[in-house]
Structure formats: structure tokens, C-alpha cells
């Protein structure tokens, strides 16, 4: 029995790890630029930069942190800025909480909470049925070290990195986002509409006066709350069976 159980954990861990590899590649690339900024702007050592990445796992959040450290901001100001930069995770964690079995142990919730990043979240919510914590850990095990390593290498190499390679690797994470949201949209016209609308309004918000002056994280939260509320009012989803039906309506 014990052996069967541990084998099942390992299978899930391994499945998660494999799904985490594309995340790891993208993380490595994005973290390079983070490492460069950490040493150049905030005067951190490569070890401190890597430690920051291991502690935060957040690109916008870390850039915000670097900016605050570089500006010698007070700890209170730093905390507030970090809250603004990362507040979208509050929404993501709420959404992810519905993918966890109500019986899930608290310790699993504490560990999963440490690894709620945009990409791991995308992987977690797109899992079939309830989320297996070991699947999530497997993905985190691939992604987290790559994030820290990328930051470290970026901090050491600085601008000596080949621009072409960094440029190409930078879109990897966006590719992942697309692979998460597009396939369900093919099955549901409602989701397809929602995504197109999100693209359009997000594009508009980036150029319109006043709105474009808001920090990117704040714009993301505003658009998410507005559009998700609108669609929840117009096209309510009652239960999982109905979600399936909506997803298969084509």
C-alpha cells in the first residue's frame, strides 16, 4: 500500500516536472534581465539577486523591489509598492482555491501558496478536475531553480549576453499563456469573445491617457475585475457540468 501511494506521488511529481520544463526555459530567459537590473540598478550581489528570486518568484514584483531599493525607499513604501505590483496574485489565488479539494491539508496550501506565479497558476487552473498538490510541486521544482539560476547568471554576465538569444527566449512565457487560454476558447464562443475583448481593452488601456499612467499591475487587476464581473453577470456558470457543456457547445 505504502509503496503504491508513494509511486502515485512520484508519477504526479514527474508529470508536473515535465509540464514545468517550458516554464523553466522561459523563466531562465526572463530572469536574466532581472539579474542584470538587480546588480546594475540596486547594487545587489549575484547571490542576493538569486535569493530575491527564490523568495519572491515574481517578475513585476522583483522589478518593483529593485526600483525601491535603488531609490532607498522606506520599508513601508517598499511594502505598499510590492502590494500594488503583486495584488493580481490575490485574484489568482482566489481562483486557484477553487481548484483545491476542500479536504486538502493546510500544509499543502501553505506550500502551493509559495509558488503561485503567473505561469504555475496557468498550469494549475488548467489541470483536469481538482489540482493534485504533487503535480504542482513537480512544476515548481522545474520552474523555481531555473528562475533563481537565470537571475544569478544574468547578474554575473550582465550585458555580455547575446541580445538575439535573450530576445527570442523572452516570448516563451507568452507562448505558454496562449497555450493555456486559446484551446478552451476554441470550444466556447463566450471564452473566445472574452479573450478578444481582453486583448482589445488591454491594448487600449496601454495607450489611452490617464489609464496608461497607472502601473501595469493595477491595469491588469482593473481589467480583470471589470471583464470577469461583466461576463459573470451576462453568462453565469452554475456548476462543473455546465462549464463542460459551455466548453463543448461548438
Amino acid at each position, binding site marked *: 500500500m505504502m509503496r503504491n501511494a508513494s509511486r502515485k506521488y512520484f508519477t504526479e511529481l514527474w508529470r508536473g516536472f515535465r*509540464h514545468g520544463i*517550458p516554464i523553466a526555459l*522561459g523563466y531562465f530567459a526572463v530572469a536574466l534581465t532581472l539579474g542584470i537590473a538587480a546588480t546594475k540598478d*540596486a547594487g545587489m550581489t549575484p547571490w*542576493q539577486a538569486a*535569493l530575491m528570486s527564490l523568495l*519572491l518568484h515574481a517578475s513585476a*514584483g522583483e522589478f518593483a523591489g529593485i526600483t525601491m*531599493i535603488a531609490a532607498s525607499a*522606506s520599508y513601508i513604501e*517598499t*511594502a505598499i509598492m*510590492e*502590494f500594488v505590483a*503583486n495584488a493580481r*496574485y*490575490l485574484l*489568482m*489565488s*482566489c481562483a486557484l*482555491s*477553487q481548484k483545491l479539494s476542500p479536504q486538502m491539508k493546510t500544509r499543502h*496550501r*501553505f506550500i502551493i*501558496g*509559495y509558488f*503561485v506565479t503567473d505561469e504555475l*497558476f496557468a*498550469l494549475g487552473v488548467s489541470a483536469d478536475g481538482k489540482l493534485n498538490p504533487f503535480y504542482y510541486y513537480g512544476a515548481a521544482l522545474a520552474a523555481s531553480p531555473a528562475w533563481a539560476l537565470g537571475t544569478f547568471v544574468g547578474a554575473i554576465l550582465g550585458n555580455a549576453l547575446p541580445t*538575439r*538569444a535573450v*530576445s527570442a527566449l*523572452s*516570448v*516563451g512565457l*507568452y*507562448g*505558454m*499563456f*496562449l*497555450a*493555456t*487560454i486559446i*484551446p*478552451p*476558447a*476554441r470550444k466556447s464562443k463566450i471564452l473566445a469573445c*472574452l*479573450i478578444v475583448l*481582453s486583448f482589445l481593452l*488591454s491594448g487600449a488601456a496601454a495607450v489611452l491617457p490617464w489609464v496608461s499612467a497607472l502601473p*501595469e499591475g493595477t491595469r491588469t487587476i482593473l*481589467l*480583470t475585475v471589470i471583464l*470577469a*464581473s461583466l461576463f*459573470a453577470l451576462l453568462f*453565469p*456558470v*452554475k456548476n462543473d457540468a455546465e462549464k463542460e457543456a459551455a466548453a463543448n457547445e461548438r
Partner: protein
Amino acid sequence: MNGNVYIYLLVLAAVTYLIRVLPLTLIRREIKNTFLRSFLYYVPYVTLAVMTFPSILSATESPISAAIALIVGIALAWFGAGLFPVSVLCCVAVFVMELFLI
């Protein structure tokens, strides 16, 4: 820089962790309210879409190569390619395009 880097990191880490862990530990039951359920069901699609566009356009050396990668990514995902192929082929698209553009 005046403050201690390690205290800064501690502040940043504490704020970030609390934001992520509180909903997971406080919301333990399935939400029954239809509006809230629907809202949370739609959240990932909007958030991920909003984070992809238009940010992707400024992620690379040239907005044209990024736009091509966006189209390639959407098309591949639409026709059922998985996370890894979509992700890698977006990178390849940028690399190839930039051989001509830059």
C-alpha cells in the same frame, strides 16, 4: 542605497507570500454563489490575456517579431499544440524574424 538589502528582501517576500497564501488558506470550501463562481472561472482568461497583450510587443528587440510570435502562438494553440511546442515555436519565430529585421 541606505537600508539593508536583506531587510528589504524580507519585506518584499512577506508581502508577496501573504498575498498568495491567504486566499488559499482562508477559502477552503467550494464557493456556491453563482456570480462569484462564474467570476473566478473567468478570471484566469482575462488576467492571462491582459498580461500577454500588449506586453508581448515590447518583450523582444522588435515589435514586428513579437507580433509574428503572437500570431504563431495563437494559431498553434488553436490547432491543439501543447504548452511546450507553442512556447518553443514562439521563440523560434522571434529568432528567425530577427535574423531579417535586425
